[in-house]
């Protein structure tokens, strides 16, 4: 079962997105802030990351840049959810975002994009595994 890390500071959004992805058969881990998400990666390596462009402590672009700068996480596909306004393409490309969903979207679009990115990833290099001895409990929430 593919693992998806979901980052959104809005709890209600997070629950809705998490439910949609879990219903589609993904194991979903969530984080309410960028820093928490980044410090999870060492122990709990997802197959794909979905993040809002605006988060509690860092935006999605910066979050993605940090993930791309780490050799152990740089190949994880990153799906960015942005608001409707503003040119995002250049910033997203600079940060190394794999795909952007801009503006309003329905949950089936999200699930479809996640599925497509994950199937594409199978042909790319797999990211390095997380630490061998994972912690017995995670502070993240899991479906």
């Amino acid at each position, binding site marked *: 079962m593919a693992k998806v890390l979901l980052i959104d500071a809005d709890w209600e959004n997070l629950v809705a997105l998490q439910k949609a992805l879990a219903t589609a058969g993904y194991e979903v881990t969530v984080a309410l802030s960028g820093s928490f998400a980044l410090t999870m990666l060492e122990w709990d390596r997802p197959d794909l990351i979905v993040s809002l462009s605006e988060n509690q402590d860092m935006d999605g672009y910066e979050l993605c840049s940090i993930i791309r700068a780490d050799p152990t996480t740089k190949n994880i596909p990153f799906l960015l959810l942005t608001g409707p306004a503003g040119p995002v393409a250049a910033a997203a490309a600079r940060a190394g975002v794999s795909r952007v969903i801009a503006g309003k979207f329905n949950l089936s679009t999200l699930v479809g994009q996640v599925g497509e990115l994950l199937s594409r990833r199978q042909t790319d290099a797999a990211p390095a595994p997380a630490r061998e001895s994972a912690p017995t409990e995670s502070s*993240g929430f899991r479906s």
Partner: protein
Amino acid sequence: MPKVLIVDDSVTIRKVVERALEARSIQVVSAATGGEAIERIEREAPDLVICDVIMPDQDGYQICDYVKSRPGLAKTPVLLISGIVNGTVLERAAQVRSDDVMRKPFAAEELVRKIDGLLSARPAEAPAVAGGSPADGTTPSLAALSGLVTRADDPVPDTSSALSAQDLKTSLAQFAGVAGVRLVALVDREGFLIESAGEATMDVELAWALASAVAEAGEGIGRELTQGLLQALILEFEGGIVLLHTVGPAAMLAVVLNDPTVLGKVRYSVKRALPDLLRAM
């Protein structure tokens, strides 16, 4: 500007720490290995060291032990960070005199809170804080509280540095002020209450009951299992946890928690405070 050294083999963790602390005008120096860490410690003389426990060459305990064993560096706070924080980790952290342990993953604000507490609790030249209380009047962290006690590596642990009765009262009151702690009491082996603090009260009967529980566990179960002297007894009730920790052969510290998640940190802090409590007896 305070200078903090982050030691972690993960680029991501180093970047999270750099970003969070630099936003607070704290200078951050990084090291990816234990070897690099030693070199940075010698060259940069950081005001605080944050160190991952598991690293490829030297582990975080070794780095912490190095800092705490070096003359002139022993008072530099060390915060260990680890994906696993359990009794074994806390025990080892206490052995190497780490000032605090933080679980990964963590949010930036949690890290900043810890670092602020540790930097403000520094002794001597630090711009802090009489009695270990943060200058901003917030509840003292357990790490700051641990800073109240004389460390084992302090050169002159003479009787003049022992806690007075008033200091003991203050020390217990600060323990009781930690979020999740409801009551702290020092009780002698006969069940007489020596000192207590907190929102709940400790009456004579309760003190006697707790002392009896420790005596029975130590003399009965401990002897049967041949596991040596009893160190601590943890009682879990529906409404919270009671930690009973021996303070030498003559007394014990009872800590009543209404938040079970702080148990690990309280145990760690009690171990750190034991030498001073013993001197105060």
